[in-house]
């Protein structure tokens, strides 16, 4: 079967053909009992699915949902509302056992900052666990909200012992939700969460490392969760989301560049 035929059969089942196309598919079905059987099965499933759930539309809506819908939205945030569409798919995944590890050329690193040898960063496992845990959290995804960004940054900077910066990712559709303090592999770690206007999330994880070094930029993916990670001096960074690699890459480069720019100031 050609892609075009498959496409038309789908549209036939969903009632999205022109009358001429519809007649064309009718002719196929008349000539091919197996194809006709297939279409009947698809239509029967749709009818059964609608029938199986139709009663939900008639149910009285629970009072707690009515009350939730009438609640006041949170007070305005400090962040600009200019949110671009984002193709990033973000969520979480089962982060156990990374199976795919690909390396690619690191973005340009200022010569002065680069040591003689570029080594591979270690995977920061707590970053994955923290991502998985908190992106699924609807009501309390962060400890300190973005409305208290200055406090958030100062507090986490103190705990990690470096001046943290929170890159602006608004041009990629992500605004800061807030952040939290976490236990890292070797000391405290910070997690910043970002979100698109329709709720897709991204986390940036920063942890202190025992040994200062400069690593390449690495990518790993498992169970739909993408992670870029690298180490810069005494700190490890990881950016995680459910986006495909190519979608997350420009965001990761922006984060990397923002951190570097800040070092130069």
């Amino acid at each position: 079967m050609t892609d075009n035929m498959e496409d038309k059969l789908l549209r036939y089942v969903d009632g999205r053909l022109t009358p001429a196309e519809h007649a064309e598919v009718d002719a196929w079905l008349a000539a091919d009992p197996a194809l006709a059987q297939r279409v009947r099965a698809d239509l029967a499933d749709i009818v059964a699915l609608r029938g199986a759930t139709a009663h939900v539309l008639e149910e009285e809506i629970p009072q707690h949902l009515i009350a939730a819908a009438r609640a006041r939205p949170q007070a305005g945030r400090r962040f600009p509302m200019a949110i671009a569409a984002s193709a990033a798919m973000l969520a979480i995944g089962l982060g156990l056992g990374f199976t795919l590890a690909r390396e690619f050329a690191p973005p340009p690193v200022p010569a002065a900052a680069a040591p003689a040898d570029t080594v591979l960063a270690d995977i920061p496992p707590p970053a994955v666990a923290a991502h998985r845990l908190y992106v699924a959290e609807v009501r309390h995804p962060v400890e300190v909200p973005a409305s208290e960004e200055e406090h958030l940054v100062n507090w986490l900077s103190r705990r990690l012992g470096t001046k943290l910066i929170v890159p602006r990712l608004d041009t990629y559709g992500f605004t800061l939700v807030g952040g939290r303090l976490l236990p890292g592999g070797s000391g405290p770690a910070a997690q910043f969460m970002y979100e698109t206007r329709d709720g897709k999330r991204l986390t940036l994880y920063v942890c202190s490392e025992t040994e200062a070094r400069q690593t390449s930029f690495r990518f790993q993916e498992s169970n739909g969760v993408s992670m870029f990670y690298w180490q810069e001096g005494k700190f490890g960074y990881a950016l995680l989301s459910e986006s495909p690699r190519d979608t997350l890459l420009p965001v990761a480069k922006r984060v990397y560049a923002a951190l570097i720019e800040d070092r130069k100031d």
Partner: protein
Amino acid sequence: MFTEYAKAPILSDPSDKDAQARGDAIIACLPRLRRYARALAGSRGQADDLVHDTIARALDRWHLWREGGDLRAWLFAIMHNINANQARKKARSPVTLDYDDLRDGTQADQHERLAAREILDRVATLGEDQRAVVLLVGLEGLAYEDAAKILDVPVGTVMSRLSRARARLREDAPRARLKVIK
């Protein structure tokens, strides 16, 4: 991105200044959100938790809502993302469906009840991505383009997932039932 929706089937035009209108607009979306959630989550309790979380997150992010867009599509997208986040957390445990509400809420006879259970069972065994397109297109009757915006994937991806999902549903269909269909 949701300002692109040309069709706004349910929507009124809520604004922060008009809490009553905002509440009404959300409430108008609730029957279909609840139906979608029920097919997605299985039990009534889990489904309404998902709807509640969706409303809460929408209100948290209300400052990002653009007036004149398709509120229902936006709420579906939020629900989809919350469910994807939570489903992965629970991915190792089998989906369980609670059929009590089927018995409570319908006068369907025994045969129809079994048919309802049977299709929900088959849909529940699909992967998250395939289940979403089957429900958005088949149950909600959305255009492929609108489903693509909600899922944030290309239209071609929606169609290929739908094609695979339906093939899987056909494979899993009980043979006896297929013969009955005229």
